């Protein structure tokens, strides 16, 4: 609308081109701002770079040239050392099983909830949604001791299954919220047509709703995977033994163990951040866009 107005008034049009010229005159200014932002970004990313260049140095190189110097040597000893000491393969497997299972189960749970709330419009559905959301607003500390106690009494303590169940439910709060909103706006004609053709609710869900929702479900699963991978407090308490710990927990309980020299610590930090950074590089667009709908979390 503003453009049309500008075009219809010749005077404004000249003003506009003059303004555009003025904008281009600020050529120097825009380069300064680019430089400023580039420096800010470099400062943000400096810790990553430092971890990387120091994790592949020899301790002697670190001692003589300091942490800022580019490596004069190359060794994977520090990385290998940390990897074997904490049995990093095991932690990676645990984290992957944990996050993958939660991603699938939480999406399923969200889908079933949202199907009943958004399409079935069941009474009390909204209340459940509000309660689920309250469940993730309250601090985990107010659930943690009873969960610890209950997990122990049913024999699920120190088992991945306990945290898989817990986070499938907790993360389904956000999924239910998102999918209910989507399904409330679902075109009714399609559903009615399917019903007339004699499709059961179960068939409608799997043959009509799920295929249409597939992209949204994939975004949700990606989010649940990363959130679960990074969860700390509950896995810290419920996964006590070395064999059941996740990457996130293993790094949190290092407390100076195996990391007496700076290159090994750098290696530990690098290995801890690497899986999620790689994941981020693959799913960057999904994650930065999805965070907007995830703003509620």
């Amino acid at each position, binding site marked *: 609308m503003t453009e049309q107005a500008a075009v219809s008034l010749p005077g404004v049009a000249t003003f506009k081109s003059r303004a555009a010229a003025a904008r281009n005159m600020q050529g120097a200014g825009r380069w300064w701002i680019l430089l400023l932002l580039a420096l800010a970004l470099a400062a943000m990313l400096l810790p990553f770079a430092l971890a990387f260049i120091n994790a592949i140095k020899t301790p002697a190189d670190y001692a003589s040239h300091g942490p800022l110097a580019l490596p004069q040597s190359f060794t994977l000893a520090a990385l290998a050392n940390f990897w074997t000491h904490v049995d990093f393969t095991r932690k990676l497997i645990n984290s992957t099983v944990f996050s993958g299972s939660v991603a699938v189960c939480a999406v399923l749970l969200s889908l079933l*909830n949202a199907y009943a709330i958004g399409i079935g419009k*069941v009474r009390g559905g909204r209340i459940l949604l509000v309660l689920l959301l309250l469940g993730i607003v*309250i601090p985990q500390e107010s659930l943690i*001791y009873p969960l610890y106690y209950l997990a122990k009494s049913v024999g699920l303590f120190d088992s991945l299954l306990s945290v898989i169940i817990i986070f499938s439910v907790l993360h389904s709060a956000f999924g239910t919220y998102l999918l209910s909103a989507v399904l409330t706006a679902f075109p009714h004609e399609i559903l009615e047509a399917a019903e007339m053709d004699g499709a059961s*609710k179960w068939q409608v869900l799997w043959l009509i709703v799920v295929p249409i929702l597939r992209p949204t479900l994939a975004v949700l699963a990606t989010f649940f995977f990363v959130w679960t991978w990074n969860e700390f407090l509950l896995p810290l308490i419920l996964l006590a033994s070395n064999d059941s710990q996740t*990457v996130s927990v293993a790094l949190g309980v290092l407390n100076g163990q195996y990391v007496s020299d700076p290159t090994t610590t750098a290696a530990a930090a690098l290995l801890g951040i690497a899986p999620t*950074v790689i994941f981020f590089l693959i799913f960057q667009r999904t994650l930065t866009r999805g*965070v907007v709908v995830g703003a509620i979390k």
Partner: protein
Amino acid sequence: MPYLKQGDPPMTQPRAGFSAERSAGYYLYLLPGVLGFLVIVAVPFVMNIGISFTTWKGVGLPRFVGWLNYQKLFQDGAFWGSLGHTVDFVVAMAVVPTAISLILAALLFDYISARFGRGLSSFFRAGFYLPQILPISAAGVLWGWILNPFGVLNAILDSMGLHGLANNWLGDPGLAIFSLMAVLIWLQIGYSLVVFMAGLARVDPSLYEAAELDGAGWIQRFWFITIAMLRPEIFVVGLTTTIAALKVFAPVFVLTNGGPDNATIVPSYISYYHFFSTNRVGYGAAIATAQTLLILVLGIIFLRVQTRQTDEGAS
């Protein structure tokens, strides 16, 4: 099909009956969700409130003591100190990152995206967002390595001949809280930046040009367009990060363990400590309950202020 629409009013009644009958079959789909909520959230939450009125070592039978734990809580200096640190973390997670992100988002939208292309601005956005994606424990190891007395930061200061500025960043009671705040700012900027940049996508760039035409400088455009247009996003970011700040645990656990001398202790850490180190489970539960109450009250205040503001905006 068209006659269906014409017949809409008379259709409503049979339809309502039909849909009530229809929705009955859907309750089955809610069963796993309700069951999960009861077992994972509702029952533990009620149990925790119950425990907070008892003394309990985690074994044997809890003994009912009424409000005793809450009375102790009011006299616990560590608890009051932890609330003070929570305010510091609200500054580090909600206030500072929001301010920085607003400026970054405006610069990226107004200058980089408009004059260098969207690709470059997306690249910047992704870069600033990167710390958000890390497990906090891994970020903690990274920063612990940088901030420890023999760590990278002091080595850098030494190499620049600024030995006098070297410090025990996490071990000095006067400095530890500021070090933690810096780490949290670093972690949080990406979140608000991404939300704000998505919000700016709604803004018509010609609005900026029109304002420029009217002689508005960058600061005026920032204030009257960017901030004004982003009010809903600023609210959402403020609410979510403030709640997150009240729940901070992992950075404190990994970097300082609440120390030195409780200088960085937070409510979550105190309840964790009493649950699993001193085994004063009842007291830990009381702290967790108080923390929950605080978060809910703050959330309600936030939502009230928001509703009032949108009402004013509408009238």
